[in-house]
């Protein structure tokens, strides 16, 4: 009994931290409808800036408080710069491009932070008063955690006042409902958005600085935080501040008790909470059904067959690909094999995202599940490669079907965030379940049989499988099923009205995409001789998105071209500069701002324009 109260307090302290990171995210989303991927990066900057400020200030409590506030202000300023330089330019772009642009910012901030503060973790030397303890129910409880517990509700209260008792807040709330109307009433939206973004960024910075005494400034904060924040925001209901608070408390407290009862369950527990909440309340605890943000929406891209000349070009490229082993040597052959895998990776994502209308930020999950299915079968049952290549798509397909059953009723942004959260959990399982998966060391010795050891036959096999699957995906797209799927994407109510089972169509799309992606994972695993948790990492998921969006959603060839271009670019980049994240991030941001339709889309438009003129 005596351990309940301290455990509860620990949970509440966690809840406060969770709330601080999710509050800014949910406020920014509410107004701008942008899911800000770089929110975790802003928190990371807050931690680093906070470290730099706090280590230079006297160590008394009042200076500590001042340093924290200065950090929040500094991060808010960075937020202003970010909003004006990047986000402002993509408010009218499709959702995914916005997400992608903010991910470009994540990459840029990663490298900039690395350049400024170096790769080592920076712990904050804690003054004595910060190390104090309070006697609670017979056990010692850290004083700082009590401070944290107080800060959460305090921030919630202040935000509530700002939103409900000021003109600024009234305008913000009006803009979340109908920004066009707000503009027509003479309110400068751009300034409003900038101020909201600054507030959100400031909150992230505050959270980062306040996390310092219990943790440290390190380069892993950005992605670990963003997954947590996504879960909290989704559970609480997108855009709902009280919802975010409630979800923080729920998750924080459950986590605190979960750790005591079943130490390894924490991550799965978070997912379970999310699943249960979403089954009963698809819009989160206090969220409301998403109304269409009133603004001219861009019609979803129509996928059309390629013109004959382009098909000829594709056939020529394929012939060249088949002949490649006679032309290039070992290293480039492995790059080409990677490209085949990338094609599966991108084409499968395109299938659910383009025609299916379901964006995913966790596509690497299926890739990893396929790879682990093959690897585990070999490792624990000695199954040969053909069996592994068969098991991989089956396993990934089954899991994505199960996952689909939970999420299929959710709309775009929720779905994208949940795929990310699910991928994080798959990653955590592969990372933490050391006994089975080998943890960080991965599974080694996952080699193909002798006949496929040589790069050439292996490349041909990869090429045959990826082209075959890509053609099958294309076939499905132009089959009645594909038309039905696109109808469901364009208007679910109308599709239902003509008798289509929208949920089933979507689950099937998820299963197909998951299976194709899982096959890619297995091919990759045998090619590299191992399976590692990095296969499921967030950056890997984003690679798939990049490929698809580079190529554009409008064409079947798009993801393939995107995969090839991306693989080539990444190969060159990684070999030529240490700052590849910075360069890649900048390229993403520029591309999103300049080509909202992707490479293939732009080429196609130019091609057609040439024809029509």
């Amino acid at each position, binding site marked *: 009994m005596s351990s309940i109260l301290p455990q509860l307090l620990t949970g509440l302290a966690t809840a406060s931290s969770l709330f601080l990171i999710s509050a800014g995210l949910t406020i920014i989303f509410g107004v701008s409808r942008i899911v800000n991927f770089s929110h975790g990066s802003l928190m990371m900057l807050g931690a680093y800036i906070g470290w730099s400020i706090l280590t230079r200030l006297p160590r008394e409590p009042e200076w500590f408080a001042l340093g924290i506030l200065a950090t929040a202000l500094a991060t808010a300023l960075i937020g202003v710069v970010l909003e004006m330089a990047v986000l402002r330019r993509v408010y009218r772009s499709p959702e995914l491009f916005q997400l992608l642009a903010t991910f470009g910012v994540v990459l840029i901030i990663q490298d900039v932070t690395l350049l400024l503060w170096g790769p080592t973790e920076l712990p904050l030397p804690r003054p004595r008063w910060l190390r104090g303890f309070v006697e609670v129910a017979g056990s010692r409880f850290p004083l700082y955690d009590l401070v944290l517990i107080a800060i959460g509700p305090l921030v919630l209260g202040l935000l509530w006042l700002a939103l409900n008792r000021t003109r600024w807040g*009234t305008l913000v*709330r*009006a803009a979340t*409902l109908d920004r*066009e109307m707000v503009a*027509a*009433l*003479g309110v400068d939206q751009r300034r409003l958005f900038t101020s909201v973004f600054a507030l959100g960024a400031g909150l992230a910075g505050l959270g980062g600085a306040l996390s310092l005494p219990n943790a440290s400034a390190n380069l892993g904060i950005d992605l670990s935080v963003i997954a947590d924040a996504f879960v909290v925001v989704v559970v609480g209901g997108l855009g709902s501040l009280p919802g975010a608070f409630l979800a923080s408390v729920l998750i924080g407290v459950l986590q605190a008790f979960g750790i005591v009862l079943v130490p390894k369950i924490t991550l799965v527990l978070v997912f379970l909470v999310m699943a249960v909440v979403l089954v009963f309340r698809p819009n989160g605890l206090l969220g409301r059904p998403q109304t269409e943000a009133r603004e001219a929406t861009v019609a979803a891209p129509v996928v059309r067959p390629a013109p004959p000349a382009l098909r000829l070009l594709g056939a020529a490229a394929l012939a060249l690909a088949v002949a490649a082993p006679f032309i290039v040597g070992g290293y480039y052959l492995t790059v080409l094999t990677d490209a085949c895998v990338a094609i599966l990776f991108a084409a499968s994502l395109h299938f659910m995202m383009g025609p299916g209308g379901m964006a995913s930020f966790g596509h690497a999950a299926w890739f990893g599940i396929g790879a682990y299915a093959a690897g585990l079968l070999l490792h624990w049952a000695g199954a040969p490669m053909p069996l592994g290549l068969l098991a991989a798509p089956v396993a990934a397909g089954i899991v994505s079907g199960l996952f689909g059953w939970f999420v299929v009723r959710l709309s775009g942004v929720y779905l994208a965030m949940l795929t990310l959260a699910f991928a994080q959990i798959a990653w955590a399982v592969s990372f933490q379940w050391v006994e089975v998966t080998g943890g960080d060391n991965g599974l080694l010795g996952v080699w193909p049989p002798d006949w496929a050891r040589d790069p050439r036959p292996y490349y041909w096999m990869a090429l045959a499988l990826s082209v075959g699957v890509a053609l099958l995906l294309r076939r499905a797209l132009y089959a009645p099923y594909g038309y039905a799927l696109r109808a469901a994407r364009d208007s679910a109510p109308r599709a239902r009205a003509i008798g289509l089972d929208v949920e089933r169509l979507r689950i099937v799309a998820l299963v197909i995409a998951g299976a194709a992606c899982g096959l890619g994972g297995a091919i990759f695993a045998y090619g590299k001789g191992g399976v590692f948790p990095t296969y499921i990492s967030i950056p890997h998921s984003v690679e798939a998105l990049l490929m698809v969006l580079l190529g554009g959603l409008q064409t079947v060839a798009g993801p393939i071209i995107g995969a090839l271009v991306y693989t080539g670019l990444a190969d060159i980049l990684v070999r030529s500069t240490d700052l590849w994240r910075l360069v890649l991030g900048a390229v993403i941001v520029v591309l999103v701002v300049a080509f909202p339709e992707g490479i293939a889309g732009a080429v196609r438009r130019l091609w057609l324009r040439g024809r029509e003129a």
Partner: protein
Amino acid sequence: MLAVHGLNTHYGRAHILQDMAFEVGAGEAMVLLGRNGAGKSTAMKSIIGLVQPTSGRILFGGRDIAGEAPHRIARSGLGYVPEDRRVFADLTVMENLEVGRQPAREGLRPWTPARLFELFPNLGRMRDRPGGRMSGGEQQMLTIARTLMGNPRLVLLDEPSEGLAPVIVQAMAEAILALKAEGLTILLAEQNSHFAEGIADRATVVEKGRAVWSGTMAALRADESVRAQYLAL
């Protein structure tokens, strides 16, 4: 006060407004008459800047405002009351009015909530009610009141009588007449001339994105052929 010349607006490839032209004089009430889909709403959205016109000029107080940002156009003294009301459903009546509030304009008696509640007594009795929990007529009054809080010199009223009960329509007409008496310039859009009859001084008949007829209300009443050709259902 407002002059539209050769205005063209496209939605994607569809050419909606085709060389639209009309004028509204200071203190005047002019009505754009036309069937559903004739381009009345698009004309209004083009004027306030919610839709970008492809070409043409929109002179307001002598300044070309075509293509400017909506908030700039609104701040220059143009008020817009949209056809589907668009009250902020989660905001109370007072908060809705607050969103519309802009600084007082030179030479105009500034609008305050108190003054607006004289014009729309209903609203005064439900200051703290969320916009989403009001009847259609109440919402329509709130949108007009909200726009007036910006102290406009001219208001664009897009079908203010649409979907309202006859009694409410009557009250609406009286309120608009009161505004006109204050000297407010009004551009009204309506599907049939009945509601406009008692309010407007002049009419421009719109058909397929073009202005096809223009004249006084009396002339329109007299011209049976125009009404039969463009306004009959």
